[in-house]
């Protein structure tokens, strides 16, 4: 009687009402449980049969007779005449709280707090000098006349000149330079100018994948010679690479070889572009 393609809403209504839902059935099982079968119609028109098996248990609790008596007390004051049981306007249940005592609770939580503090500090340190990486504006840098921007490893030189200085003195960039690198960079033959040497053997790598890591670049470029420094520009917020990097070699001939070989090299779906870093215009 009901063709599939029928669209007449009147007829549909008719059929709905004709659909008699069976009565709810309750059957008692032998093991003391009850099976309740109910029928309903879902929103999409399908009939649903729900079967629930319920076991009723009586929990007996022994309470102090005084307490039991007080439970029977009439309500009074603002609650006078209200039905038994908690009223929704005055009583509610809060979300579950996990409370588990632990020995040394304080020391455990303090650690995580310290981590948080460090993170906050990092967030706050927005100001960074492009010349010496100190926490002042680039224009205010005391070395802006003598140093080129992006000289991330300036302390290499500083380390040579005043090795006992604990890496600070307002220079800001206090990253530790291992002794073997100091030897390399300060190696003597290209002492023409402090920063010239850096530029001469430094490659600018662009079109770097944003998922690249400094270590990846170091691995790739150290095939051609000793890499003294890899600087991969990263976004401060996301920690992703910005797409360019600088790679410095100890020897300019190595750099030239790398420049030739690595230009056009495919790395993580992107074609690297490698060129000699231009001398900074100050």
């Amino acid at each position, binding site marked *: 009687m009901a063709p599939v393609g029928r669209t007449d809403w009147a007829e549909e209504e008719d059929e709905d009402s004709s659909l008699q839902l069976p009565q709810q059935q309750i059957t008692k099982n032998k093991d003391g449980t009850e099976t309740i079968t109910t029928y309903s119609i879902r929103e999409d028109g399908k009939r649903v049969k729900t079967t629930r098996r319920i076991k009723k248990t009586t929990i007996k609790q022994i309470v102090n007779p005084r307490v039991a008596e007080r439970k029977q007390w009439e309500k009074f*004051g603002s609650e006078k005449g209200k039905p038994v049981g908690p009223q929704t306007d005055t*009583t509610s*249940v*809060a979300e579950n*709280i996990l*409370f588990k005592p632990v*020995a040394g609770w304080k020391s455990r939580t303090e650690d995580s707090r310290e981590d948080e503090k460090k993170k906050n500090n990092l967030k706050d340190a927005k100001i960074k000098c492009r010349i010496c990486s100190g926490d002042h504006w680039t224009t205010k840098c005391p070395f802006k006349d003598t140093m080129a921007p992006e000289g991330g490893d300036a302390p290499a030189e500083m380390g040579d000149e005043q090795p006992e200085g604990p890496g600070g003195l307002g220079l800001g960039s206090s990253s530790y330079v291992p002794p073997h690198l100091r030897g390399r960079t300060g190696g003597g033959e290209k002492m023409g100018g402090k920063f010239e040497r850096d530029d001469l053997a430094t490659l600018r790598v662009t079109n770097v994948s944003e998922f690249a890591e400094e270590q990846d670049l170091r691995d790739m470029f150290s095939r051609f010679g000793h890499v003294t420094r890899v600087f991969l520009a990263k976004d401060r917020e996301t920690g992703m690479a910005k797409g360019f990097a600088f790679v410095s070699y100890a020897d300019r001939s190595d750099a030239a070889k790398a420049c030739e070989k690595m230009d056009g090299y495919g790395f993580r779906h992107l074609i690297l572009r490698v060129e000699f870093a231009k001398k900074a215009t100050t």
Partner: protein
Amino acid sequence: MRPILLSGHERALTQVKYNSDGDIIFSVSKDHVVCAWFSHNGERLGTYHGHQGALWTVDVDPTSTLLATGGADNTLRLWEVKSGKLLKTWEFATSIKRAEFSADGRQLLGVTEKRSGHLSTIVVYEINPDPEAEQTDEQSLRIVCDESKATVAGFSYLAHYIIAGHEDGSVSQYDAKSGELLYNNSEAHEPDMQVTDLQWSPDRTYFITASKDKTAKIFAADSLEVLKTYTTDTPLNSAAITPVKDYVILGGGQAAMDVTTTSARQGKFEARFYHKVFQEEIGRVRGHFGPLNYVAVHPQGTGYCSGSEDGYVRVHHFDKPYFDFMYEVEREHAQANL
């Protein structure tokens, strides 16, 4: 642990108390109304109307027939617990900061505020435990605190002493019969750091005080000797000793007036659990968004409730981990005894 949230008050809670069986919680707040609640499900049994000002204190007698309240309307009142009927009103010159029954329920003490030329006093009334009986107007004892005003007070075991905490951080011991000052421990808390709470151990032989100096201390009732010290990072409003497990619960948070200037995170509005013996913090329970003004422990040690400046009472029933927790030495000891 699922706390039950009691929202029957419109203003900041000042004190919450369990009765001796732990089935009813009484709460008072600055909104002039006293509420009685069933502790197991948070159902409100009733309210007590009559006070004309903010309420500071509530206490119930050991048989749960009489309820004493005191507040800023300069009255100390006695109510019938069952019906909410007002039985007696004692009038004073200044507000009542603390009311407490003795362990047998035959005596009631009240602490009056120091104001407008009136010194702070501790008054004691003999109480007739029969709700039908006429209560006396006569003070059986009156202690004047001329050094520094009393903020909290209570009866020791057998109503032997009255112990009072003062505004200047001292704790003193009076003879509960004569009212004579027996001993004043002026080094109890930091000078001029108010003692904000005083709660007894179940047998009333020792007690814990909370103070604005960010510490809570356990004293012996006899000697007023400091037995234990619990140091926190926030001014404390309340401290309670838990039966069954050897813990103490401390409640506090920065002063109510400073709350709006800081975030809830920094407000430290948590109940802090310390181990009573080892004096080490073992956990915290969050939930309130105002400083905790009072914490009360179920006399059977199965739960606790806290009243806060935010206007809510939170009733907690402890879970299994609470009862299972033991220090290594405690566990060894328990095993050796098996």
